[in-house]
């Protein structure tokens, strides 16, 4: 973007739990105002990475700065500039939505207006309801509301829309877009690849503790992974597919061959971020299986357990 220093800078980040390497040399940076999506399977090291950046966990190696500060030494002033939406938790919640937001707003030097945040997160009807009485999706909205109440410069969203219905997810996307417009830098992890595609400017894909690809949302995976697919059913009822960077020409030739008749079940498919992601992760798994023995599968499971613990 500009010459301003990156909001997040991660160089060769490593994290081991005993002999298990959860994160093995991850590097990336996030520019001011950017939304960066960190994607990857469960247990790949996403949450460990994000929790190191948030200051919750120590790292084993590498360099990290967040808002110009090493998270190990981040004080209260530093925390006041962050907004953290953790993965869903099970707090008892014997306070109302408004009480909780008002209380948390008091922690910050320059909080947002409580009513404004309640409206922006769609909690107006539940404002006077105790959090313990809310549905999972509504509680998640409260988590998001608490994450943005302090007017953060950098917002961490760890699987923010788990439990949202489709409408709530679209409303959430609108909210995040308005935060982006305001200049908030966002680090997002999600299992919904359409969400990453909607919100992210760039994405990094982590598998088995390593960053296997990083790039803009529209380019990640490389040009080859994004070649469109033309699919149709031929005269014998067989499904035919052709991968081509000139789908219109293929379709035109097909129609010409059929003397102007309409090809049956014709589709032109542009690989979505999800398709690209799946091919990258599967490719990585296949490569890992080739180079490592069966023992590595056991270690993969262990990694997940330790990270979740």
């Amino acid at each position: 973007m500009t010459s301003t220093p990156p909001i997040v800078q991660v160089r060769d980040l490593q994290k081991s739990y005993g002999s298990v390497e959860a994160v093995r040399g991850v590097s990336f940076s996030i520019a001011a105002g950017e939304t960066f999506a960190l994607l990857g399977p469960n247990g790949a090291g996403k949450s460990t990475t994000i929790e190191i950046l948030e200051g919750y966990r120590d790292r084993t190696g590498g360099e990290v700065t967040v808002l110009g500060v090493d998270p190990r030494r981040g004080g209260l002033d530093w925390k006041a500039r962050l907004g953290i939406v953790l993965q869903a938790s099970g707090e008892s919640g014997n306070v109302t939505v408004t009480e909780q937001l008002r209380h948390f707003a008091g922690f910050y030097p320059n909080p947002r207006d409580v009513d404004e945040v309640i409206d922006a997160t769609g909690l107006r009807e539940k404002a006077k309801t105790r959090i313990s009485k809310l549905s999972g999706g509504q509680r998640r909205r409260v988590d998001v509301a608490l994450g943005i109440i302090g007017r953060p410069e950098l917002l961490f969203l760890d699987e923010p829309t788990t439990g949202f219905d489709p409408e709530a997810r679209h409303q959430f996307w609108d909210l995040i877009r308005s935060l982006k417009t305001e200049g908030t830098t966002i680090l997002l992890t999600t299992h919904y690849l359409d969400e990453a595609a909607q919100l992210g400017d760039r994405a990094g894909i982590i598998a088995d503790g390593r960053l296997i690809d990083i790039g803009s949302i529209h380019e990640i995976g490389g040009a080859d992974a994004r070649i469109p697919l033309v699919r149709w059913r031929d005269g014998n009822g067989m499904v035919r597919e052709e991968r081509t960077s000139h789908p219109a020409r293929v379709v035109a030739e097909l129609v010409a061959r059929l003397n102007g008749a309409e090809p049956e079940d014709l589709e032109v498919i542009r690989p979505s971020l999800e398709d690209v992601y799946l091919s990258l992760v599967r490719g990585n798994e296949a490569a890992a299986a080739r180079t490592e023995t069966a023992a590595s599968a056991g270690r993969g499971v262990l990694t997940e357990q330790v990270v979740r613990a």
Partner: protein
Amino acid sequence: MSATITDTRPPKKAPGTLALGLSRIGYETRLYFRSPDTLFFTFFFPFIMLAIFTAAFSASGNIGGNADGVGGVSVGAYYLPGMLAAGMLLSGVQNLAVDIAGEKSDGTLKRLGGTPLSPLSYFLGKIGQVFVTAILQATLLLLVARFVLDIALPTEPEKWATFAWVFVFGVITSAFLGIALSAVPRSGKSATAVVIPVVLVLQFISGVYLQFTALPDWMQNLASIFPLKWMAQGMRSVFLPDSFAAAEQTGSWDLVWVAAALGVWLVVGLLLSRMTFRWIRRDA
């Protein structure tokens, strides 16, 4: 979620630790009275025990009277100081140990740890909550004693001065010991199973439920290691006639030792709290 959030940014100073601590006290106290478990097992428990003891033993006459049954004090009056001491212990140790262990395992502390709330403000909130609720509990106990059980309360200012320092000292000590003990349970679910037996055994050996002076010497000596015995003794010195002092271990109320024991436990609790408290369980 209508997506309009305006950005107005007048620069302001971060709120102070003390101001946030006061705000936490209000918040924590509200939460305390919204938790039915806490209300029953911490706030009203001494009332329930006092009612049971009074109902069960009143027929057997006064305690500490002469052979002809004249003199001494009623069963309710005898148990009142013990129940006040139990209330201090429950409000501090049991309440905070269970509460903080639960907050640790349900994610409350992790969330707070990601905000600019100082741990000091958090502790001010907890200790303030213990104070507010313990004062309410003690006041209510004294009102019940006076007006329901018709127990004569002391009128001498010196007695009430003793009450004040034993109470304040005991409650602060209990609060720190509760924070320290909250580090022991491995999960919020196991917290009550870890904490309640400790607190219950202490109450039995320290002269809350059983007449301390009737306990065997070894049990009295064991109880003397722990702070509850001293809180109860301090409270007995306030509410029982001076003639009862003769039945104590050394034949007197030993208020100096009460202060010394509570002082030592206060320091122990403070150090343990300081050493063990974490927003989240640290990974290896």
